[in-house]
């Protein structure tokens, strides 16, 4: 199992990272998604729901 895990670790270790690529909260893009249109609240609305 260790032998199987090693290639995956090698790929992760060799992936190029920039200084700003440190991990944020897991789903940061979700809570930052302000620019998308918001959803309709009821039937007959003209745009689909977003949340």
């Amino acid at each position, binding site marked *: 199992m260790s032998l199987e895990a090693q290639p995956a670790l090698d790929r992760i270790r060799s992936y190029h990272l920039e200084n700003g690529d440190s991990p944020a909260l897991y789903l940061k*893009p979700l809570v930052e998604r302000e620019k998308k249109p918001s959803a309709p609240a009821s039937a007959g*609305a003209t745009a689909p729901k977003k*949340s």
Partner: protein
Amino acid sequence: MSTEELFYLPISEVAKRIETKKLSPVELTQTYLDRATKLGPKLNAFATLTPELALEQAKAAEKEIQHGHYRGPLHGIPYAAKDLLAVKGVPTTWGAKPYAQQIFDYDATVIEHLTRVGAILIGKASMIELAGGLGYRFASASLQGAAKNPWDTKCWTCGSSSGSGAIVAAGLAAFAIGTETWGSIVCPSAFCGISGLRPTYGRVSRYGAMAAAPSMDKIGPLARSADDCARVFSAIAGHDFKDRSTVPIDRGAFTYSPSLDLKSRPLKLGWLTNAWQHIDPAVAKLLAAAEKTVRKFFPGTKSAALPEGPFEDVANITMNVEAAASFRELIRSGRVSELSDPTSQIAGYLNEQFSAADYLRAQSIREILQKKMEAIFEVFDVLVAPALPIVATPLETNLESALSFPDPLGAIGNLCGLPALSVPCGFTDKNLPAGLQFVARAGDDYSAIQAGRTFQLHTDWHRRHPKVI
């Protein structure tokens, strides 16, 4: 209408009969319980049936409805919950021998939500032990045994929501709740010819649910259609102060009305060309027809490609490290040896050896991946791909060889918390279903549902059901 047909009616139809008092929730529940008692053991579908609780809830629902207090489309509707969701006073085994006697004294938030809208819990669905958190190689890695596929009982339903898939496909409940860390809603939906929604990460509270890999675990419905999934999702979605990973209160709730115009916002679809390296020829034939349907009803559908990188490696290390933490007590106590699958017995010890540095590096790559996917969703609203490149596998299959093919979409979707809806898209010559998945950006569960509903408006695969004897 025969009783058999009643078991396969969409929630909307059953709800209409209940609301107009043409169908008694008590009679419906008893009929489902009888069927579940008779057929459940043949499929290893349930961990526990809850007849007393179910009839108590059904009587209360009936009384309320008789007095004009109709709570909505799930009022009086029988369902099953994966056996990793806490239900007060009922065994919650997590599918694993070390937890066979485990009983919680509270309800999971999902159960609370469903109780509040008047749904009837008829039982706990069987599952792969620990939801596969410590790995497994065989369908039989479950306290309840291998869940058998109602389309062919020599085949598996796929895991880890294996019982949930069997229950919905066999008409043993109107819907079931499952969970997905990587593939456990999409896969059973595809293998069982049903519809399943993996919601956006954080959209459904996991309070009272077993944790496998907390940054990837999600709870969602398996049901007869995209419409049914949306109805259940609207009942269980929402911020929960007891689960700090849920999205903020203004983005958690999901308001659904089936009368929303499907064409109100034309969706931009991307047909993924690199979701699977190899597709079984029998499935490929069905997908070619499904692609035609998609392109016909979503004009302007373009080809799309997933970003390339070590994303499956990232998903694997994330899952493995977090699961080792989740089950630390089980591993350290040595009771992990009681698990049924030899892989599960030892994987935890290996997974504890990953370094924090490697785990954090994986999370950095995850951050990059999320940005890459954001860019793709600037172009497309929904990505479409086969749910799986194969149909249901025989029960005795070694999953390490038969189900170990690359799954970049599963890895990416679950690392980024993207919602996905799997719907049936055809049947092979051996009468086994194949699935199609619609994946949307995080938070935009509606678009995945909208795409699935549109597909099901023009196809009838979701209306087919197996002959279960």
